[in-house]
């Protein structure tokens, strides 16, 4: 290919311009392109997971940031409380429960039974009296000014108002309805099949029941087969058995097994019978049904009152009043009444139809206000979800982190400076360095055990106090800070040190005036990483007992307290659905904390950043 | 016995220095030939040779210009130090002196046409020939001391300058005698006297070359050393 006359020159250029060279180049570009796409895919996957995580946390937690408050006309008067505001003690010990009880019962005077009254009181939060008392104590002038006070609604009522208990649809009455009153019950008759929809929904639920029965039946088949198999085996064995004791035992077993089988067969028979009966009822579309709590609830809104249907056919229904009608009526015209069906059956929810009706009435009367959930941000932990707040844990976290920072930062930076600038390079310093690196990898729970053994058991320090938690976390964070600080110090170019030494600065002056400021951004980054780690640590703090159920917001470093991650951990255990929301909301608060800390780190870095 | 047993790292520098030395040698050769021919032309009253010799001086002048330019260029580009610096500066001086010697040869050639070949006596020419031989010898030896970097040869040349001066004085007396004997000789003898003077000057120039050679070798000024007693000239 090369022209020998032109010799070397042509040969040299063809090395890079020949077809083979171009193919090699194309291969290089392809490899680079692949690498870029792999990188993008990796980023994409990470971002997707991050978005997934954030969206699930935020969607669950966001409802917890608003809450519904009820402001009934509470009789917060001097007579009821026993003072007009002058005497703090009397104010504190006054019976706010009765004030609240009286107010709510005044709204629903029809409720007379003991159970009913108790359920009615459950619409409001069980911590309402505490809440009300706090408002009065904060501002005793409300006694005389008659300003409207509010209390939190109960957690389930709140969930219901946010649409998380059940949904349902309301249809206007499609035909005229005749109303007949029989004692406590009502009978409703229409000319058209207005209840057909509700009826078919009820029958649908039956088929769910049927399916359950059939499944149970299928489940028994295995046991039946086993029992039959056992009997056959025993029957075969007994004749050939020679030992009389064993034979007797076998015969007893055989008899028992046969009895078991008989019982099982009877049970299966009953199941089949029930299932068949239900099937029959489902098939018969016109057959009326009694509305049990396993079936979707139907509420009839008529004449200013609310009736709950107890049995329906396509055209008729019987109902009990959940809220009294404004006046007696015998007929309701088409379009003046509404039928509401709730999707989730009463048996599957913790908020009964009656409670739904009462809550709706309060909303109708304009007593309910939806606002920012100040309780969540201003109160400590509580057994009641609606009274539970994150402030206690947040303050506890803040106090603990302050202690951690105050202990770990100076010690860590000073240790790094000594090891990097002053320590002689011999075997001892190498051993120390290796050990520090290893400590950074120790599981955090080991530090918890250390704290338990040394701080609590040996020194008898306070359990569950931020300063002890801070000390444990400081031990844990120290290696991270030391390692990051050493790296930052090492990154400062030696020319700076030489210049300072050449001017006549001592070793210490060189480090503090020149090296340290330049290494600050790196040191701060390491510190914030360590702090962020400490903020999210649960295991070591559990070990030293910061699990205490702490209601009061801590104010000093030795008050018992808990931290955000532990609080989240505890709340995640509670069964109430309102707590699940609050767990996610607390996670969001924790994330906000972390973002704030990182933002501070970025600002501090920018301030200290210096080009050299 | 060349000077540097090791060479410049930059070989083109080394080449340039060699070229300079070669140019000096070449110029020296041209000048020696010029003196020889001029003397011959004078003695034999050969007008053709005289013309040729006179014309050949242009080449000598060109050579001096070449050496000058080369030396200045090397100073600008190479920043020579120590021995190299002395070498280049000396080369400029030596070229200068050689050019003067070339001019002397041209003058000698020019005088040939003023001499009447019939009348003049052979005796007179002997002196001139002797003078010329001596001057040539000095020139040759001084150039040797330069190219060989031999301080002793340079000293020897300086010593021998006395001989040249002594010969000139004796020739001067001789010519005076001839002139006093026969006034018809005055014209020719005067011309020959001037020739002798020129040759004596050529010897002085050779001495200058020797001083440059001494400076090149030792870095010291020869006459300063003589004055201060560091060096003996006998």
């Amino acid at each position, binding site marked *: 290919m090369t022209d020998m006359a032109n010799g070397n020159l042509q040969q040299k250029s063809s090395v890079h311009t020949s077809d083979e060279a171009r193919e090699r180049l194309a291969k290089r570009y392809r490899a680079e392109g692949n690498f870029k796409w792999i990188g993008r895919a990796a980023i994409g996957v990470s971002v997707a997971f991050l978005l997934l995580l954030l969206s699930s946390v935020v969607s669950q937690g966001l409802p917890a940031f608003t809450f519904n408050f009820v402001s009934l006309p509470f009789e917060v008067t001097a007579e009821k409380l026993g003072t007009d505001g002058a005497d703090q003690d009397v104010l504190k010990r006054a019976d706010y429960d009765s004030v609240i009880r009286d107010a709510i019962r005044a709204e629903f005077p029809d409720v007379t039974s003991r159970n009913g009254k108790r359920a009615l009181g459950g619409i409001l939060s069980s911590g309402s009296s505490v809440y009300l008392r706090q408002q009065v104590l904060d501002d005793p002038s409300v006694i005389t000014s008659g300003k409207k006070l509010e209390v939190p609604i109960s957690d389930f009522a709140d969930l219901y108002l946010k649409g998380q208990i059940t949904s349902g649809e309301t249809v206007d009455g499609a035909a005229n309805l005749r109303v007949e009153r029989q004692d406590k019950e009502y009978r409703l008759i229409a000319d058209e099949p207005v209840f057909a929809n509700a009826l078919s929904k009820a029958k649908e639920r039956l088929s769910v029941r049927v399916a359950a029965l059939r499944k149970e039946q299928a489940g028994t088949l295995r046991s039946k087969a086993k029992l039959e198999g056992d009997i056959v085996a025993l029957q075969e064995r007994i004749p050939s058995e020679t030992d009389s004791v064993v034979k007797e035992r076998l015969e007893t077993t055989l008899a028992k097994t046969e009895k078991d089988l008989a019982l099982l067969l009877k049970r299966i028979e009953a199941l089949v019978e029930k299932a068949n009966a239900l099937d029959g009822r489902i098939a018969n579309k016109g057959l009326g049904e009694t509305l049990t709590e396993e079936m979707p609830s139907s509420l009839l809104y008529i004449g200013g009152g609310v009736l709950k249907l107890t049995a329906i056919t396509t055209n008729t229904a019987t109902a009990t009043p959940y809220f009294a009608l404004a006046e007696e009526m015998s007929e309701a015209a088409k379009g003046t009444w509404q039928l509401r069906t709730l999707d989730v059956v009463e048996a599957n929810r913790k908020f009964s139809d009656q409670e739904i009706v009462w809550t709706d009435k309060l909303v109708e009367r304009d007593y309910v206000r939806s606002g920012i959930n100040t309780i969540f941000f201003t109160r400590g932990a509580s057994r009641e979800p609606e009274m539970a707040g994150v402030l206690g844990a947040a303050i506890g976290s803040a106090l603990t982190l302050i202690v951690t920072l105050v202990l770990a930062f100076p010690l860590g930076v000073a240790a790094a400076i000594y090891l990097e600038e002053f320590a*002689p*390079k011999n075997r001892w310093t190498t051993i120390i360095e290796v050990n520090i690196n290893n400590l950074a990898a120790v599981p955090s729970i080991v530090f918890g055990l250390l704290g338990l053994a040394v701080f609590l058991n040996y020194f008898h320090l306070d359990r569950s106090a931020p300063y002890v938690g801070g000390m444990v976390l400081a031990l844990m964070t120290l290696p991270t800070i030391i390692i990051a600080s050493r790296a930052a110090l090492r990154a400062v170019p030696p*020319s*700076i*040190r*030489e*210049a*300072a*030494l*050449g*001017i*006549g*600065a*001592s070793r210490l*002056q060189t480090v503090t*005036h*020149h090296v340290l400021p*330049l290494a600050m951004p790196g040191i701060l980054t390491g510190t914030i990483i360590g702090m962020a780690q400490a903020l999210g640590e649960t295991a070591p703090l559990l070990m030293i007992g910061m699990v205490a159920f702490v209601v009061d917001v801590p104010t000093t470093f030795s008050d018992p307290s808990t931290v955000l991650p532990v609080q989240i951990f505890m709340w995640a255990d509670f069964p109430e659905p309102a707590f699940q929301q609050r767990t996610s909301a607390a996670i969001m608060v924790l994330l906000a904390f972390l973002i704030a800390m990182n933002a501070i780190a970025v600002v501090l870095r920018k301030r200290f950043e*210096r*080009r*050299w | 016995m060349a000077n*540097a047993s*090791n*060479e*410049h*790292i*930059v070989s083109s*520098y080394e080449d340039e220095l060699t070229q300079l030395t070669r140019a000096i040698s070449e110029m020296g050769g041209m000048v020696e030939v010029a003196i020889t021919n001029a003397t011959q032309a004078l003695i034999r009253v050969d007008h053709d040779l005289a013309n040729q010799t006179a014309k050949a001086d242009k080449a000598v002048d060109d050579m001096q210009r070449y050496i000058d330019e080369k030396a200045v260029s090397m100073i600008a580009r190479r*920043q*020579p*130090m*120590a*021995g*190299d*610096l*002395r070498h280049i500066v000396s080369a400029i001086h030596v070229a200068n002196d050689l050019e003067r010697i070339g001019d002397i040869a041209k003058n000698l050639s020019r005088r040939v046409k003023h001499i009447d070949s019939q009348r003049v006596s052979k005796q007179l020419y002997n002196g001139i020939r002797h003078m010329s031989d001596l001057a040539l010898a000095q020139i040759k030896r001084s150039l040797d001391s330069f190219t060989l970097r031999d301080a002793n040869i340079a000293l020897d040349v300086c010593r021998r300058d006395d001989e040249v001066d002594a010969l000139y004085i004796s020739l001067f007396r001789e010519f005076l005698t001839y002139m006093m004997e026969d006034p018809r000789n005055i014209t020719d003898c005067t011309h020959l006297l001037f020739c002798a003077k020129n040759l004596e000057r050529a010897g002085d120039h050779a001495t200058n070359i020797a001083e440059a050679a001494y400076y090149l070798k*030792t*870095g*010291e000024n020869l006459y300063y050393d003589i004055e201060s007693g560091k060096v003996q000239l006998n």
Partner: protein
Amino acid sequence: MSVATEILQPNVKTGKETIKMSGQKVCVHYGEKQALFDVDLNIVANQVISLIGPSGCGKSTFLRCLNRMNDTIDICNVSGQINLEGQDIYDKSIDVVELRARVGMVFQKPNPFPKSIYENVAYGPRIHGMTRSKDELDELVTSSLRRAGLWEEVKDRLDQPGTGLSGGQQQRLCIARAIATKPEVLLMDEPCSALDPIATAIIEELIDELRENFTIVIVTHSMQQAARVSQKTAFFHLGKLIEEGPTEQIFTNPHHKKTQDYITGRIG
């Protein structure tokens, strides 16, 4: 003395030379390896002496001995005697911090502190407690910057970072910083090697002016610079001091063949 010699050394007024610093039998070991072998060198006051030699010959090592910067290197071991005005600088009673205020240093790569120009120059005097009031400090900073030939260029921006200047200006800032502590001796380790010819010329001019008040020791790779700038030159080779003498003599007629070979470019 003849007329010619006088003309050649116009700046030596009285012709009398006082020794500012001297080294006797100075040896330096880096661990096992020996870098300097019995160096005897006198440094004359108010003169510039340049140390030349091929790479690795020990000239920078010797320079760093003069202000005990070699102390910062653990494996470095210095023996022999080095005197500043007759006092051994390695003596126990000498405080190395004070020594470095008296013997200042300018490095090869300009390394101003990442602080303002004012702070760069003021740092030295401040830590040595040389001034009693802010006005005195201002005065010292101004005069140092003037002496370093930088004042006109930076007087309007003293609070701007020193690292924002050009290379030549940064080096002059480092010189101003070094002279702010009023040292007696100024050590310069290849100060112009990172600079362009104009900046180099400015600094060489500066060195000439500083000679009035300071004694300067400069290490340089450029023989032309050594020839331009110094009155005395010392040639090092493989850790030994080969020759030392007046600069013209070294560069026109060196005594040692090694010196001649190095100067003319015959050995590396």
